Every structure is written in C-alpha cells, then in structure tokens.
C-alpha cells in the first residue's frame, strides 16, 4: 500500500475546494429559503382560505411537494422540463426543486402554528372591529410565530442538508467537490469524513440554537 500523508495535511490540501463548495451549498440553501418562505406563506393562505377552488389547488400543490422525495422533484425539474421546451441549468433547477419542496413543508408549519393560536383571538379581533386582514397579520401571525420559528429553523437545517442532493445534477457544491477530491486521491473515507464535518460545522450550532430557542419561546407563555 502507498504510505498515506498525515491526515491534517491531506485535509488541508482539500479544504479550499471544499470550502468553496460549502459556499455554493449555502447559496443554494439561502436562495431557496428566500424564495421558499414567502411561497410557503402564500400556499398556507391558499389552503386555509375560504375559496374552495383556491384551497384545493393549494392543497394539491402542497401535498405533491411534500409527498414526493426531494430527489424526484429535482429530477423532474432538471430532466423533465426540457421535454416541455424549458431548458434550465443545474443551479436554477436545484433552486426550483429545493424551494418548492421547502415551501410546502413551511406551508404546513405556518398552518400548524396559526391553528395553534386560540380561536378567541380571531373573535376578539372581530369584536374590536378590526379588518380580517389586520387581525391576521397583526394579531394572529405574531402569536403564531412563537411555535413557527423553531420549526422553521429545523426545516431550514434540513433544507441546507438537502442541497447535497444537487450533487446528482452536477452543481459544484460541497458534496460534488468532495467526490471529485475523493476520486482523484482514492481516499474516500478521509474525504467524506471531512465533508461530513464541513456540513456539521453549520448544522450542529444551528440545531443547538434551535433547541435553545424552542425552550426559550416555550417558557414565555
């Protein structure tokens, strides 16, 4: 067997490329989040709305987006849309797939949070003569955010992890960089441990903050 170079030296040589990949992963997650959050709120309002047709359409969008694996959605967008004459590069394809998937989960989180606000709040808003819209945005939503925020953070951590699926459509994100480094050095174990650590550096502190926030927000009731 070929003598191996020291672990830290090996990691040091691969790290710059991996960190560049991590930036792409973070960009994927960031853009998907910026698109997915308002979209999730929109879907939620469609599903919860009084109009039957709109709420059915919303429900179908959300249930398909949540029911299919993210990988399938990604393949449908990347390999499927060209058949309908829409050619997309891998990065925007990944954004569309991740944002849709994420927004559907967010929609359910919003809905659960809003439904957890006692019905009396709505009635109180009515009794005070507040407009429905004002009641929703200024009375219900702020209270709902208490249970929504930790759940959204958790979902966003999953979104960040799901960016690794973009590897399959050749987005040069962290996983892709790791695989390239692995296939040139054939030291897959060391490479993927480093890749795992790169993801963990982001997700571990994020999940600790989420848990702390969850406890804090539960306390203040």
């Amino acid at each position: 067997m070929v003598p191996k170079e020291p672990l830290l030296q090996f990691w040091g040589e691969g790290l710059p490329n991996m960190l560049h990949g991590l930036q792409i992963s973070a960009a994927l997650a960031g853009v998907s989040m910026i698109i997915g959050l308002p979209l999730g709120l929109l879907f939620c309002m469609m599903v919860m709305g009084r109009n039957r047709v709109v709420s059915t359409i919303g429900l179908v969008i959300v249930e398909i987006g949540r029911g299919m694996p993210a990988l399938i959605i990604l393949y449908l967008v990347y390999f499927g849309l060209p058949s309908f004459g829409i050619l997309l590069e891998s990065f925007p394809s990944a954004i569309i797939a991740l944002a849709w998937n994420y927004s559907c989960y967010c929609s359910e989180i919003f809905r659960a949070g809003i439904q957890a606000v006692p019905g009396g709040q709505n009635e109180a808003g009515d009794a005070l003569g507040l407009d429905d819209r004002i009641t929703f945005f200024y009375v219900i939503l702020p209270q709902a955010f208490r249970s929504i925020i930790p759940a959204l953070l958790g979902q966003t951590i999953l979104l960040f992890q799901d960016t690794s699926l973009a590897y399959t459509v050749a987005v040069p994100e962290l996983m892709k960089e790791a695989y390239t480094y692995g296939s040139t050095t054939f030291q897959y174990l060391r490479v993927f441990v480093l890749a795992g650590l790169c993801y963990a550096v982001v997700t571990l502190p994020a999940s600790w903050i989420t848990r702390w926030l969850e406890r804090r927000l539960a306390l203040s009731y």
Partner: protein
Amino acid sequence: MEPLLVVLSGLPMTLLITVAAFAIGAVLGIPMALGLRTGIAPVRWIVRLAVDLLRGIPMIVWLFLLKFGLSTPTFRITALEAAIFGLGLISAGYLADIYRGGLQAVPKGQYEAAAALGIPGVVSFFGVIVPQAARIVSPSIATYAIGLLKNSSIASTIAVAEMVFMAQGYAKQNINSVAGVMPYAIAGLLYILLSIPIAMLSRKLDANLRKAVI
C-alpha cells in the same frame, strides 16, 4: 405501461430498505434514548453529539462514506448493505430523539406514583411510563417512517436498484422525450400512494393506543 413496470420492479428494494432501516433504527434508538436521559453527564454528552452528527450530516454523505470509505481490498460493503446500515443509523438518531421527547412528556407524577406504589424501577419504566410515552410519540414515529420511505430514494445515488434508480435507467434511454420524464412522475406518485397506508395505519394505531388508556 412500460415505464410503470420498470419503476415497479424497484418497489421491493424500496420497501426492503425502508423496513430494514426502520427496524434497525427502532431498536437501536432505545438505548440511545436512554443515553440521552442518563444522569451520567459524559455519557449523555457523547450520545447527544452522536445523535446530532447522525441528524446533522446529509444522508448522501453517510451513504458515500459507508459505500466508498469502508471498502478495503479484504472487506467489501455492498451498496444495499451501506444503504440499510446508513439509513438505519440515521433513523436511530431521529427515533432516539423522538423516544426521548415522549419519555420527557410523561408527567413526573407518574414516575413518583410508581415509586410510591413500590413498583420496581424496571417494571414501572416498561409497565407505566413506556405505554404512555408510546401514545404520545406514535404520530411522530409515523411521520418519520413516511420521511424514511422518501429518503430511501437517496440510495439510488450509490446504485441500489430501488424505484428511483430503475426510473433513472429507463429515463436515460429516452432522454429529451416525454418517456424520459414519465418514470420520475410515476415514481413520485408511487411514493405519495405508499405513504397513505402508513398514515392510515398510524391513525388506527393511535386510536387503539388511546382506547387502551381510557
């Protein structure tokens, strides 16, 4: 018709991975949940870190790590073994956290009441606490099982011949035509269809568990 049959030929593998990984996770999650609640701080920290790493590192990284990282000239791990073992470990992490939450949600008075009645620790844990905790966590476990079913699709990236892998093989022969998209759409719908019985089973189980208590 043909794309449907191709995708369906991967169904047994999808089910095998999901069931086997869930079984590993459900069993391995028990000692890990106890580890998350133990009074011995160093043990608790180590188990917490292990659970956080299992949950915080993407599934695809774990699968590649097992598939490509653990193979040596003398020891080979097959793609299926890597998928089952990897998803099983990750499930153990998630389920341990779910179990822990359930145990924590049982009111403290129940532990104290069991102690006051002189019920031995092990009996009170399995006879008093666990049944109540099971009722609390059964919906979360069902949600996780449905998630696991969908995540088993990631095994296709290490060439396990499950539904998505079969769909991919067919799609690649019919690229840039509708036949190149059909298998993915079919596979996607199958995942949605498959998750319905799990949800129904869980609702039934939940209703039964509730009846058993009242």
